[in-house]
């Protein structure tokens, strides 16, 4: 039944990011009172962000995790070590900083493939 229903999108971001995506209809609080979003503000501890991200990664009902790039920088070690196709972790531009492709984990891995030797 869950396969036909599809998987959820989770979001980790500031209040505007979470509010916006929740307006789009992705928000859900399951029977165990677990939300699929985390609102991060200046008082949110890094350990809390790490714990929530790990929780989202371990949940079977989440297919994509959207995380603001500025927050992704804080938990870069978790994102870089995540190799599974599902859930897919997607870094999205934050409100305060423009999108920086040099920080994106996926594009950095792809960029690291090519060296001057390969094109000789």
């Amino acid at each position, binding site marked *: 039944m869950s396969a036909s*229903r*599809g*998987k*959820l*999108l989770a979001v980790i971001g500031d*209040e*505007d*990011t*979470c*509010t*916006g*995506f*929740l*307006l*789009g*209809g*992705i*928000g*859900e*609080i399951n029977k165990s009172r677990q*939300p*699929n979003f985390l*609102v991060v503000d200046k008082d949110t501890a890094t350990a809390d962000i790490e714990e929530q991200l790990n929780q989202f990664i371990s949940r079977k009902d989440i*297919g*994509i995790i*959207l995380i603001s790039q500025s927050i992704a920088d804080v938990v870069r070690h978790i994102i870089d070590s995540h190799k599974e*196709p*599902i859930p*897919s972790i*997607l870094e*999205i*531009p934050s*409100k305060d900083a*423009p*999108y920086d*492709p040099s920080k*994106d984990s*996926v*594009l950095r*891995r*792809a*960029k690291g*493939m*090519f060296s001057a030797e*390969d094109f000789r």
Partner: protein
Amino acid sequence: MANDNGEQQEHQLDEVCIALLKLIAQIDAKKRSLEECLRDGYYLLAQSRKSVGKERLSSTYYSPQMKASTMVKCNTKEGSFAHICRPPPPPTTPVATSSEQEPATTEEQGVHRRKKQQNPPPAPAKKEDEKTTSMTTRSKLHPDDPIFWFGILLPQSLHKAKECFSQATSISCEICSLERMLERKRALYNSLSSSSSSSSAAAAAPAVVTTS
């Protein structure tokens, strides 16, 4: 023979390399459009906040019983993500039907009119077009729509912000599909590259000469 195999591998490697670079360009373009969508969405949210009040549009007003209407369908075989929007269940209380549906019967219209008369003084009779437009607008908003967490009379900017973020969700699913393809191509490139380097190393190794 060995040369042919080597050339074939090189050719394959070139093709995979070109496909990889195209995918990277596509992902970069999609991320730029995602950034634009989000930027518009943030701006519209700020406008809405100015209308309804700073505290009104905050996490305090999130529903404690929210249910997702937007999901993603994951195809592990192809590595693709499809954005699906599940239509909400039909409301238990009757709402005005859209102009595209069959018109209500005379009796239903009469009941609807009588119910309206119980409320404060009715507005002057609208023209048919305006009535149709207002009915269509009401029918598009379901009672379980998250937009209603923040109130009933909401500014148009908030509706537009919702559309921006819905579009951003769709683009995000497309980006995830492209990233999965990129990972698969990367793995293929690495395997071809390692087999190509090992075969060229074998070809370059000096031939062993035995003397009797």
